[in-house]
């Protein structure tokens, strides 16, 4: 099943099981979504539950908040992360805080989904990643999905939760194929050990998990080590148990992310590790991230601005050699 089909299946099941689940966004209805994630929902559930909105991101999320207060469980789709910026007021000032500010009088079972990241030459205003900002907001749960399996189970769980969830996808993952076991006991709050190993813990999420996996054979061969690859999946809360167990075994941490390095999400992981796993670590952690520049348009430079399998392998090999591997 494709990643986007897995999301679609989660929608179908959730909307069939619970009539209060509605979805809204630009082009989500009749057309079935920019990335076809909401395909056929309009036909099956009708225009009152699958809502084509005006081009008004701030209102999409604001309306979702009101719908949730009114007893619905809205899933809002924003076309891409950069457009979600127009809704950050509603997301951060309202959606994240109303349950707290109301002294618990309201619950907001809302999912706001959007893709992010570098796709192919969409340039500075269509390519960025904002998990670091959103994971820093108390009151929001931030989930990601790097596989169809995680997409299906993650979205289903997100819709069931009574807290607002930011559900982040990646532009380049929608056509990724993978098995979806709907009966599996998949916990989206648990980090996944994508590949077990003994000497280096490689932590990542979203599309970078694939790039890390592509880089691993070269790293293992050049350094003569075995790598453990962890897909965080949930960015807030963080499954620190899985991280701690892995670091106790390997003693080495590499964090790979696509967002800008300064203030990037990985800083949180490395900071946590230095606070809580200091004595387990045998080497300074390595962070591999995007440059601190907007994403350039030119394809060569675009690729030079974010980690690639090649640059990931090279940086880790160099770091490994400098640190006794």
């Amino acid at each position: 099943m494709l990643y986007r089909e897995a999301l679609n299946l989660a929608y179908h099941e959730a909307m069939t099981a619970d009539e209060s689940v509605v979805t809204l966004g630009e082009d989500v209805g009749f057309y079935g979504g920019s990335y076809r994630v909401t395909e056929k929902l309009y036909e099956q559930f009708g225009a009152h539950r699958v809502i084509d909105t005006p081009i008004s991101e701030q209102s999409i999320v604001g309306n979702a908040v009101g719908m949730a207060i009114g007893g619905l469980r809205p899933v809002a789709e924003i076309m891409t992360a950069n457009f979600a910026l127009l809704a950050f007021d509603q997301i951060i000032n309202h959606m994240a805080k109303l349950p707290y500010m109301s002294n618990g009088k309201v619950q907001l079972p809302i999912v706001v989904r959007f893709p992010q990241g570098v796709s192919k030459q969409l340039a500075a205003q269509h390519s960025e990643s904002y998990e670091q900002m959103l994971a820093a907001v108390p009151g929001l749960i931030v989930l990601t999905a790097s596989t169809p399996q995680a997409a299906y189970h993650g979205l289903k769980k997100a819709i069931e939760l009574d807290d607002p969830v930011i559900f982040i996808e990646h532009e380049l993952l929608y056509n990724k194929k993978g098995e979806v076991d709907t009966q599996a006991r998949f916990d989206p709050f648990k980090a996944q050990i994508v590949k077990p190993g003994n000497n280096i813990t490689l932590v990542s999420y979203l599309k970078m998990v694939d790039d890390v996996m592509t880089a691993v054979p070269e790293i293992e061969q050049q350094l003569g080590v075995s790598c453990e690859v962890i897909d965080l999946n949930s960015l807030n809360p963080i499954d620190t148990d899985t991280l701690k167990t892995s670091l106790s075994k390997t003693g080495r941490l590499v964090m790979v992310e696509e967002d800008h390095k300064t203030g990037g999400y990985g800083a949180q992981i490395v900071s946590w590790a230095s606070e809580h796993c200091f004595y387990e670590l045998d080497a300074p952690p390595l962070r591999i991230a995007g440059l601190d520049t907007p994403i350039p348009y030119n394809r060569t430079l675009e690729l030079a601005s974010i980690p690639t399998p090649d640059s990931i392998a090279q940086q880790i090999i160099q770091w490994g050699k400098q640190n006794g591997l």
Partner: protein
Amino acid sequence: MKVLWREMLRIRRFEEMVASQYAEQEMRCPVHLSVGQEAIAVGVCSQLEPEDLVYSNHRAHAHYLAKGGDMTALIAEFYGLENGCVGGWGGSMHLMDLKAGFAGSTPIVGGTVPIATGAAWAQKLKQSSACTVSFLGDGCFEEGGVAESLNFAALHQLPILYVLENNLYSVYTPLEKRQPPRELYKVAEAMGLKSLKGFGNDLEEVLPLVEQALKWIRSGEGPVFLELSTYRWPEHCGPNDDDHLGYRPEGELQRWQARCPIQLAQVNLGIDEIERSQIEAEVKQEIEKCWQQALEGGIPKAENMETNVYA
């Protein structure tokens, strides 16, 4: 008038060239073609002075060219080359040619509308005789920032012309699924702007409307809101046709194609086929020459990656 007809043809042939070259995959940027909407860009920009400013959106090629933006630099930008209008850092959706008064386009829907409004404030403060034009789409009209800008411009009588190109769609969703039945320009009127409306495919109808609007603006009676109806022929984004997707009623595209701005003006101006083919040849030659020149540019340098992040 014939010069304006020629300009529309030039833009049409340019966009067709973009579409035909797109298939080669060298040029990767999402292109939002203006085919079918040329009379608006030309009708508006031809009446501006070089120092007047134009702000645009994702569908910017026609605005850029009509305002006198450099064609070679535009093509080079599509290819991400150093000689591009923004050095290869932006692509089709991020255009700028300050020399020509094309102040910029960005693809965050609604993004340039408040910016254009601020630019008009600066013009007013400096007692400049120049004004600003802000192009926006019917979808853009739904963004909150647009309402905020109209309010601000009306409050301070800013020298700005908002040109709403109503092509009835935002990507795949038709206007009637996004807005109640109403006249868009009446909304602006209710907000305190002088507002006009016309058929945007007829150059002869567009020109006097723009003339009136600019007269008001230049005599300090602005701002003005001008709604022009039109229709996009190609797919929302990309070089192809997407009519087969069925989001537009059957025959609608054909009805609009029958009201092609270039064809209409050709008939009205009495341009015969001999004259037309002569102009076609000149236009073709210019585009091909620019294309060739554009491709001589180099790739922007990786060592400059951080150059303009800060001043």
